[in-house]
């Protein structure tokens, strides 16, 4: 029995330690041997990686052509399509554009949608360092969680914050001509508030604007433009018409709404001060009467 156990342990030792070390191809364990303890952007947290949706992957599935002598012979060479995409997105994806481009290998349909989106065109065609690539919204692919997870950056309740990373920036709104108040106006709206307190049906940005195939509001194909907007609002508000959908623009409030609010605040504060003073005086008079006017104060006997 003991011999068998020893044999088994030896076998396990051989499989886990000796085989990768001798390895012809590198698997994740071999890479993590170094990258698990390295500092900075090259570090990969083994525990978090193993729990991610990509946790079973080998590193070289995405890092298809590794550079540097230390990686010699560990990976092959990326295919032509991936290399081309990598060169297109390289201004945006600095660490390993090949690995970033590799997402399209499995997520081809999403890549096609992204390519036609305002984000994708900005990155791929205009070579802009602003527009997002996959990891800009989804976070590091090493730690990616399913959309249903609370930790996912694109979870229903987290995605607004993720969009806000860029869309809250003033220079972005100036450069690309979207409303400077878009995030602020969404957050103070009923939609934003309901989402914040955990309403499962409250719309986040992507429920109206779309995600991978997102379009500029100058594009007639945008789901929030013209007749499309009516269709989009109707997803929740049955019977929505042109008049109804005009309500949400994410623009700064009109002066009349602004001044109504100020008037109401003045009214609230005035009533507040009046009743506070009234109550305090009443307490004062009550105490005074009890102390100094026993049996007399305020009586009509």
């Amino acid at each position: 029995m003991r011999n068998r156990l020893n044999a088994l342990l030896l076998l396990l030792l051989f499989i886990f330690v000796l085989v990768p070390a001798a390895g012809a191809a590198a698997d994740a364990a071999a890479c993590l041997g170094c990258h698990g303890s390295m500092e900075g952007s090259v570090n990969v947290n083994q525990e978090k990686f193993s729990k991610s949706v990509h946790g079973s992957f080998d590193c070289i599935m995405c890092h298809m052509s590794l550079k540097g002598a230390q990686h010699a012979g560990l990976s092959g060479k990326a295919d032509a399509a991936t290399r081309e995409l990598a060169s297109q997105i390289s201004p945006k994806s600095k660490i390993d554009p090949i690995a970033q481009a590799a997402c399209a290998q499995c997520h081809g349909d999403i890549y096609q949608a992204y390519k036609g989106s305002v984000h994708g065109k900005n990155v791929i065609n205009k070579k802009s360092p602003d527009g997002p690539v996959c990891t800009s919204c989804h976070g590091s692919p090493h730690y990616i969680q399913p959309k249903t997870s609370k930790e996912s950056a694109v979870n229903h309740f987290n995605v607004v914050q993720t969009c806000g990373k860029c869309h809250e920036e003033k220079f972005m709104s100036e450069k690309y001509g979207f409303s400077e108040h878009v995030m602020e106006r969404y957050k103070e709206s009923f939609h934003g508030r309901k989402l914040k307190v955990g309403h499962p049906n409250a719309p986040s940005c992507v429920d109206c604007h779309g995600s991978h195939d997102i379009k500029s509001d100058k594009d007639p194909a945008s789901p929030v433009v013209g007749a499309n907007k009516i269709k989009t609002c109707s997803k929740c508000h049955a019977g929505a018409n042109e008049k109804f959908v005009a309500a949400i623009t994410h623009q700064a409030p009109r002066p009349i709404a602004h001044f109504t609010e100020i008037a109401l605040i003045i009214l609230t504060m005035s009533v507040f001060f009046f009743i506070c003073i009234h109550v305090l005086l009443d307490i004062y008079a009550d105490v005074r009467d009890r102390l100094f006017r026993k049996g007399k104060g305020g009586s009509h006997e």
Partner: protein
Amino acid sequence: MNNKNIPTEIERFDLSARIQHVIMFTSFLLLSFTGWGLKYAYQDPASAWIRFWGGAKMAGMIHRVAGITMLLDFIYHQFYLINQARKGGFRLSLVPMPKDVVDAFHNFMYFFGFRKEKPYFGKFNYMQKFDYWAVYWGMFIIGASGFFLAFPVTVSSLFPMWSIQWIWDVIFVMHSDEALLAIVFILIFHFYNEHLRSEVFPMNWMWLTGKMSIEQLKHHHPAEYDYLYGDKKKK
């Protein structure tokens, strides 16, 4: 004082009025509790508070049901008033009068010690009238805007096109800010007058009994006392 024609207590609120009040404050509290979570959604305890009320969906449902209950209670009250008038003996004792301004002035004089006696209050003093009419203000501003917000698609067709860009912002601040005003008003003014004042603490039991003793009436509503019994017992 022991005049046989003068009862020891007098009914100020009949059963219907007391039930209306209970429905009103129950729905008011539910509306305040659930609405508060949404108004301050970005302050930390809001999400936990909403979870306490069964999550955002349930809190929204409670808010709508309580809101409609309150509106129905308010509408019922109008029929109640009409019925009171039909039965006769209906007095406009809650209508604000120039005398209320004089009373308020006298009350402040009394607070500051310039007058020895409290004002010659009628059946309802100016504070109680303020309390009563505050509900009408709340119903028209908060109730109407709440109704609009509950049925936005239907209601939007009532608004002219040129108002669409701002009308919802106006409705939103009306609902939210005036609700805050209502809560602050109840919490400070109504709670002080009917719960915390040394005479009534812990509460004015009239909300259950509907009755006030004659001494209380004479002390707090002398004009009403004189109106009812004055001819029998000259002041």
